[in-house]
């Protein structure tokens, strides 16, 4: 189910400056698309177009070749297939039990009671929570990290084929971040299309298969992480950076090293430096 943005421009009713300007790209099946950009560059506006929460002022968003602005059926279908996880999703929990909250989406899909329970069970298991233990508890009795996982389960229970996440790791401790990141990667490995907005360059560089950089509502760069992060100067100009290891490798190269491009993690950096100095590569 490829999702194509065709020259999408969007302005909020209250402002004359468009929040998105002439955006064109395609989300291919099974890819992991990272979206990076400075605060206010239009990332959140962009992802709300993916499932038709916002409709373009100009241009169109095509899902399976159908324009979701003009086609109501296609829009409803898209809402089902595209799971959108907003920033701090735990703030949207509302029901008195975890079961009811996670089941909210499936119920809105009009599924039967048994199917809902099955899906809630699966979704909770997927995020590492036990149905027996938490189904009847209030979602507000859990810790922040657990609440986020419950909120994620609420989206997964709708069984989307595309998962869009807006800063899924914001405000979590390192272990929570790692858990969520690993979880997202495993979803991707199972074939789910992932679109992730992030401020963390390392996460995007390591996990994404493709990166889009936004600047004031326009696409500044898009390509593989290797391509995008080989332009540290341009990235710095729009208030972004490159992964720490990449920055270090660049500086080493300026001092006479000849490290290859596309170093994103400490391990890769260590291996490259070791190889350069004729040492042992692990």
């Amino acid at each position, binding site marked *: 189910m490829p999702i194509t943005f065709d020259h999408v421009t969007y302005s909020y009713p209250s402002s004359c400056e468009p929040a998105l300007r002439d955006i064109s790209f395609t989300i291919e099946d099974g890819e992991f698309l990272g979206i990076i950009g400075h605060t206010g560059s239009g990332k959140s506006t962009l992802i709300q177009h993916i499932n038709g929460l916002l409709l373009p002022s100009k241009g169109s968003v095509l899902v399976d070749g159908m324009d979701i602005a003009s086609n109501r059926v296609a829009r409803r279908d898209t*809402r089902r297939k595209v799971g959108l996880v907003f920033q701090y999703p735990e703030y*949207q*929990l*509302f029901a008195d039990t975890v079961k009811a909250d996670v089941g909210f989406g499936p119920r809105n899909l009009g599924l039967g009671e048994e199917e809902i329970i099955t899906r809630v069970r699966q979704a909770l298991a997927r995020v590492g929570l036990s149905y027996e233990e938490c189904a009847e508890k209030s979602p507000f009795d859990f810790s922040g990290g657990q609440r986020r996982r419950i909120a994620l389960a*609420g*989206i997964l229970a709708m069984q989307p084929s595309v998962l869009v996440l807006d800063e899924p790791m914001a405000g979590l401790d390192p272990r929570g971040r790692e858990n969520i990141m690993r979880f997202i990667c495993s979803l991707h490995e199972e074939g789910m299309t992932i679109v992730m907005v992030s401020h963390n360059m390392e996460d995007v560089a390591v996990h994404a298969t493709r990166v889009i950089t936004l600047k004031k509502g326009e696409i500044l760069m898009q390509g593989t992480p290797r391509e995008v992060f080989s332009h540290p100067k341009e990235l710095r100009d729009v208030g972004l950076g490159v992964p720490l290891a990449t920055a270090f490798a660049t500086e080493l190269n300026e001092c006479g090293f000849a490290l290859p491009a596309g170093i994103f993690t400490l391990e890769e950096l260590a291996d490259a430096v070791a190889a350069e100095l004729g040492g042992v590569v692990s």
Partner: protein
Amino acid sequence: MGNLILGQYCPGTSVVHRTDPRIKLFLVIFYLALVFVAPGFSGLAVVTAFTCLIIFFAKIPFRTILNSIKPLLFIVIITALINLFFVHSGEAVVDWMFFTITTGSIYMAIFLSWRLALLLFGMSLLTLTTSPIDLTDGAEHLMRPFERIGFPAHEFAMMMGIALRFLPVFMDEAAKIKKAQEARGADFESGNFITRGKSIIPILVPLFVSAFRHADELAMAMESRCYHGGVGRTRMHVLAIKNHDYAAIAVFAVALACLIVMRVVGL
């Protein structure tokens, strides 16, 4: 919900913005008097002209003001409709089944909704040109005499200020939560009255939760800066009445005088 800016401050440096908040609050009461003293359409026309003058001096785009009262426009419309159908005086214009519209009811409908619209404009002008901090400052000063009989003027003003300050925040948050639930397939547009009422729960509960969270955080932040209520609290900006404040009072007094004369003469 995105364009609801009722009670939202629109920053500026105009004369109206700079007028002392105490005076402005006082003048708003004055303005209410203007609207209620105004006799008939001619009087309301004078008040309308006067309101336009203030808007001109406040240098606020007319659209902004219109947007700010839009959510309350339904009250104006309901007022007009009730008067249109339930006032029976003068000649009947329409008499169909149990709907009777008379010349008197048309007059009352226009007169009262016009009056109400002017009141809304006045209130909206106050909040658009006065920052919440100024507003609470002014209110606190005006309520100070009541402290003698044990009324907590400062605390009351602080609560009012916080409420005003957080109104736009909650508007934003409600819009965000609504979108999040829509992404989970919630439908807020269709269904009858009851299903629609129920569909609001997924928005209201998170909104309340976040209100309590904000309250907790704010209380903590205030306490960590040693806030302990109004006793012995000094202020950084001491309010002082300047020449343009006197001028504003004079202008309002002239307007009120005009209207009283109009009323007495019977224009």
